[in-house]
Every structure is written in C-alpha cells, then in structure tokens.
C-alpha cells in the first residue's frame, strides 16, 4: 500500500504535521475565542497576513524575535478592535465587516511591504526561530524529534490551547465570555458590559490569529511573500465548527489537518506518476469538508453568534 504505514510511523511525518498545524492552532483558538463571545471574525485570513508581515518586518527592522511576536499580536488586536467596533456597538453584519477586514488587512500588509521594499525582487530573509534543543527530551526516540525539536512558537501555541481552555472554564472572565455568547442579556442584567466583553474577546482572539501568521514568516519560513497564508484562515473557521468550540478538540482538528497535509506531500512522491498533483493538494480540504459534515451536525453553536445586541433594547 505505497508504504502509507511506513509514512504514518515515521518521525518526520508527525514532526511535519505538528509544524503545519501550529499556525492553525493559533488561528482556530483565536476564532474560537471570538465566536464564544458571539462574534464571527472572518477577518482571520487578513489578520494572518498582517501578523505574518508585521512579525517579519519587525525583525527585518531590527527588533528581537519575541519583540516581533508581540508586535504581530498587537497588530492583530488592532484589527480585532476595528472589527469589534464595527460589529458590536455598531451592530453591522459580521460577515461583511469580517470580509472587509480581510481585504483591508491583507492589502494594507502588501502595500506596506511594497512601500518598505520597492525594488527588491527576491524577498529578503530574516533569522527565524530555531528548533529548541532540549537536553534529554529531544533525544527520546520518536517523541523527541516530534515534540521537542519544534520552535518556541509551537510550544507557545500548545500553551495557548491550555490557556484558552483554562480561561474559558476556570475563570470568572471565561464564564462571562461564554454567557455573552449565549445570551447577552444575562451579562447586561448583572451590570457587566456586553460591548466590553465582546470587543475584548475579539481583540484577544485576533491577536492569536496574528500569531498564527507570524509563525509563517518567523518559523515555518524566513521571509514574507504574497499569497503565503493561502486560505489557512478559512480552514480555521471550519475547524472551529469541527471542534464544536472546544479548545482541546480544536488542537485535535488542527493536528488532523496538519497530518492530512503532511501525508499528501509524501503521497505525491509515492504515486505522483499516476495521479495529478492537484488531487493531492485538494485532498486536505476535501477531507476537512467531510470531517465537517460529520462533526457539524452535533456542533453546539454559541446561541448569540452573529446576533448584534443593543443597549436598552430588550
């Protein structure tokens, strides 16, 4: 069977899967946080581009790697603020505003990139995050290479899974975010700010999305180029539904998608002679549609998702 088993058991396959999954983990957590508060953020694709560009450019301009990560997160939060203001107090269509943010954020990123580098033909490189070499752990068979030779950003992504889970399930803030995504009146009746909670959640979620973009230019690759986000944001929107708005399942979904993607690259080399490569490129997306069809039927949507709420209107 084209040695599929051999592929599935190889260290490099799982290592690649986790690497491919990392930006998706950030993105899907970000989308999950926004949607838990009741706001769909279709700005995700553009915020990915902005995160990728800002992270890369900050390093290129001389910032430290972690400083650049912070800058990318801030840029994401700003676009989140814009989306939040448009959709929460102003109550505009979340779809329209989100798509506008995507167009705006990606165009602004390309524009800034071109303005800063008008003449370069090949994108300049930066020194990206290097795989962390943790003594002992990295030398463990199988687990070592898969888990402990990733860059720091992958570990940050895994930590964020825990963080988002903890905030949503263990803190008072998380309870309020879940409540505002289910019935904003419940929060308003307690004198808490519906607008504040929603805008805050959208900003935090957008910052996470931008980190997913930053991973692309600062860890997966070492340069910024056009079209590099390539639909990852949209995949995250689908993965949230697959994950039924649970951080743990979101991680699972991201890794599953990463594995599909890693598998198709390897299968191409095995059977590329008989099957056109486009089939393999499309495979992860087709599989995620199937996964969605199965998972989405049971998904429990936040009840107030997409529904604007206005103060004094009850």
């Amino acid at each position: 069977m084209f040695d599929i088993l051999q592929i599935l058991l190889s260290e490099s396959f799982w290592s690649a899967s986790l690497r491919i999954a990392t930006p998706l983990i950030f993105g899907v957590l970000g989308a999950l946080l926004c949607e838990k508060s009741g706001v769909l953020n279709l700005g995700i694709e553009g915020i990915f581009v902005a995160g990728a560009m800002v992270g890369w450019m900050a390093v290129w301009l001389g910032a430290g790697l972690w400083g650049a990560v912070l800058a990318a997160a801030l840029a994401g939060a700003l676009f989140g603020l814009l989306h939040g203001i448009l959709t929460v107090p102003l109550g505009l269509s979340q779809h329209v505003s989100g798509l506008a943010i995507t167009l705006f954020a990606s165009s602004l990123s390309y524009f800034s990139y071109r303005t800063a580098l008008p003449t370069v033909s090949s994108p300049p490189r930066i020194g990206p995050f290097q795989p962390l070499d943790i003594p002992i752990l990295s030398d463990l068979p199988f687990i070592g290479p898969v888990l402990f030779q990733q860059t720091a950003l992958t570990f940050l992504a895994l930590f964020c899974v825990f963080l988002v889970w903890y905030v949503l399930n263990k803190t008072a803030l998380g309870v309020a975010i879940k409540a505002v995504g289910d019935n904003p009146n419940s929060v308003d009746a307690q004198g808490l700010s519906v607008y504040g909670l929603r805008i805050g959640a959208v900003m935090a979620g957008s910052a996470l999305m931008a980190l997913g973009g930053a991973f692309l230019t600062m860890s997966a690759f070492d340069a910024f180029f056009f079209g590099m986000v390539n639909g990852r944001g949209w995949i995250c929107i689908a993965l949230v539904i697959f994950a039924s708005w649970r951080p743990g399942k979101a991680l699972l979904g991201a890794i599953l998608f990463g594995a599909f993607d890693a598998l198709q690259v390897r299968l191409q080399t095995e059977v590329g002679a008989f099957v056109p490569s486009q089939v393999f490129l499309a495979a992860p997306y087709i599989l995620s549609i199937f996964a969605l069809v199965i998972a989405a039927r049971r998904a429990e949507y936040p009840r107030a998702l997409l529904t604007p709420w206005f103060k004094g209107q009850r």
Partner: protein
Amino acid sequence: MNSNKVLSLKNLSKTFGSVKANENVSLDLHRGEILALLGENGAGKTTLMNMLFGHYMPDSGRIEVADDAGHFSDLVLGHPQAAIAAGIGMVHQHFTLAENLDAVDNIMLGAEPLTRMRRNRHEAEKKINALMENSGLSTPLDVPAGRLTVGERQRVEILKALYRNVRILVLDEPTAVLTPQEADTLFENIATMAAEGLAVIFISHKLREVLAFSHRIAVLRLGKNVGEMATSEADEQKIARMMVGSETSLPIRQAATTGAPVLHLEALSVVGRGRRDSLKAVNLTVLGGEILGIAGVSGNGQAALAGVLSGMMTPEAGKIILNNEEVSQIDPAQMIAKGVGRIPEDRHRDGIIGSMSVAENMIIEGVDGHRFQKNGLLKRENITEHAKALSVEYDVRGPGIAAPAQLLSGGNIQKLILARVFDKKPLLILANQPTRGLDMGAAADVARRLIEARSRGAGIVLISEDLDEILRLADRILVIHDGEFAETHTRDRAELGLLMAGQAA
C-alpha cells in the same frame, strides 16, 4: 409595616420618542410587603421597573433606597450595578440566563470580579444550597440552564437575586409561563421570603393571583399613577375599572346548540420540533357550534396540533376528517379552501406580512378567486373597498389601510387577522393564544368574536395557556400534556392544574 419603608420612587418620567412611557410616577415599598403592580399593556409597568433596576435612564425623578440601617440615600440612576449594590434584584419577564451554563455559573455570573483567576464554585454551591433550603426554591445545579424546565429557570433567576442578598425583589410577570401549581408554589415561597423581610414588587395580568397573594395593589394607566389600594379592599371589578378607566364587560357565553362534527382527528401522530412537542396518536372531535378549549403548558404538543390544523405540518400517521371529508393533502392553501380559519400564535410572525399594507394583509388568503384579481392583476378598487368595510366592521384602528401592517399595535393586528379570518365564515377556527399580550379591551373583543362565530355554527379549537380564558370561553376542555389529550369535565382549577402537569387527578 408603615414605618419600614425601603424604597421610594419619586416623580419618575421617561419618554421614548413621542411616547410618554412614564409620567411623574411615584411608588413606595415597605419591608416584608408584596406589592402588585398592575396596568394594561403599554401602561408603563416594565419601563418603571427597568428604571428602578438601571436598565433605563429616567428623564427626571429620583429613586431613594434604604440601607440595612434604614437610612435613605439616592440611587445612582441608569446603572444596574448600582441597583444590585443597593440590594435590588430583578427577575425579567424574558429570562436572562445563559443556557450553556449551569445554575451555579449563572448565579455566580457578575457576583464575582471578572479578574478572579480561580473561582470558588464549591463555596458558592454551599451558599446556594443554603438559600434553596431557606426559600424553598429548588433546582438542579449542575445541568445547563437550557435543559431546565421553565419553572426551574425562574427559580434560578430568583436564586440569582437572593445570592446577591437582595432586600427588594422585582418580578416581571413571574407566572406567565408557569402551571397553576408552579405559580402557587412560587407565591408561597415568595410569601415565606417576605415574612422574613424581603420586599417584593410583582407585575401581573392575572387578577386572581394578585388578589390571593399581594398585600397592596398599585395601578398604572398610560404611564401615570391612577390609584393604590390595600388588597383586602380590592375586588376584580374595582381593579379592572381602575386599569381600563372605564367599565369593560367580559362577554358572557350562553348555551348554544351543537351541530354536526366539523373536525375529526383519528390516531393522529405528529413529530414536532421540541422534545415533547409532538402528538402521539390522538383522537379529537370538534362539533359545529362549540368551543373546544385545549389547556396546557406550552410545549406539550400545542404547536404540532396548530401546525397540522393550519396545514403547515404533515402528520406521520392518522386521519384528519374535515366536515366528513378526509383531508388527503395537507398544505395551508388546502386547509383554507376547506374552511379552516387560522388565528396564529405568533401574530407578528405568522399572522401578517408586516411590510405589506393593511388592505393587502386583509386579502392575503383570498387571492385565488376572482374578487380581488383577474389574470394575476390585482383589482385595487375591490381590495380597498373590502379593506375599508372590514376596518369599520372589526374596528381596526391605525394609520390607515394603505399603511404597512407592522405599524399597527398588537391589538389592532389581531383585529386585522380576525377580520380576514371571520369574513370568510370558516367552519373550523383554530384560535391559538388569541388574547395573549392583548389588553383587556382588545381581549374582550376577541372573545366576543369567537362566541359570535360559535353561535353561527362554527367549531372552534381554542388553544390557550390562560386557564381563566379557557374556563370562561370553552364548552368542553381537553388538557394536553406530553402530546396526549385528557378529556375532562372538571372546572376545578386545581384538578386542571394537576392534569396540565401530567398527573392524573
């Protein structure tokens, strides 16, 4: 009771656009007192309570609240948090629970600072359990609120207020969604809490419970105070007169002669949307000239019954025989053609097309004949004439027959629907919650029309959650519970209540 004043609303006014919702309304409340706040729809009760709780900012006026020691101070207006801090709790008519959270989380929401990183659910649960024991209000704590019954949800709402140590509790139409038994239990619990010092204001339309459980009655009309009285000195007529401002007489049902069956359901099964909202092989006969009342708590199969009779739901099994003829194909147009008149439950959503004119809404079920159209072209003159005549006959008031129907008030929308339905002289009338949300005058009008139709020989299926309405209008009563009918001859509220709760009387 007199010296123990805890709350004083002084000359509160609030205007929405050109509507004066409240005008110089004043109200006092004492420790341990249960005050019933009454008024017709639009009299400004809910607006007043929303100002008290800080949801609305009054245009003018003050609110004074006593602290534990009895010292009065001004409440900061327009801030729910200030109201909560002052010991005021409100249970809204539409519950404000997050259905994805359990009771404990719902109760704790907002009671602890958002910055708290580790919540003490355990401690909270202990306190809630103690509260449940003291007040008699019990509810499961670890189930998402969306899966609780309406009564349980309401108890969570009240517990939410008690958890914040309220001294003043406001309940907006607390029994609108409860069975009579649940309502009685609720008021017994409230009485217990009031005896311990809680001051309670409740809004209600049900005069019976107002008379049975309140200490004092305050009435609003058109946004103004019109009177107050001790409950011991009140009776239904007195209150009704104060609310409406004139005498309204409820129509009196006289014995009528019944005719041949107009509707017959045989072993009819319908799968509804909700968990319990289906019909399980039910049988039913409606005779011409009778009003059959279907009593029950909503969500027990009423929607499925109404859906089938209006042609909007297809049964799984069973027969529908209308006027001795089996209905083979069920769709709305067929049912109308076979003489079914429909007064839908949600009159705004299903009864009218809001953006179309009053005149158009009046002919919406009759465009297949040649009276209002020819070859697909509308006959405007006939339509206008028809609408004018019906508006006069059924007293539909509003900005005119050319105006969009959504501009009419709820009562006038209902009159529009009655005009459309009754003008066709239907054999069978499905009246689903026909007076819900209407004020007394409009409700009396609807009742009168139904009785008229019955005298003419129509069979009427009256679905209502208002037991008083059923008792007043129905010739025969069926209780619906969990998709099944129980025929009953009793007119006793308590027995009917038990049947509504699914317990055999």
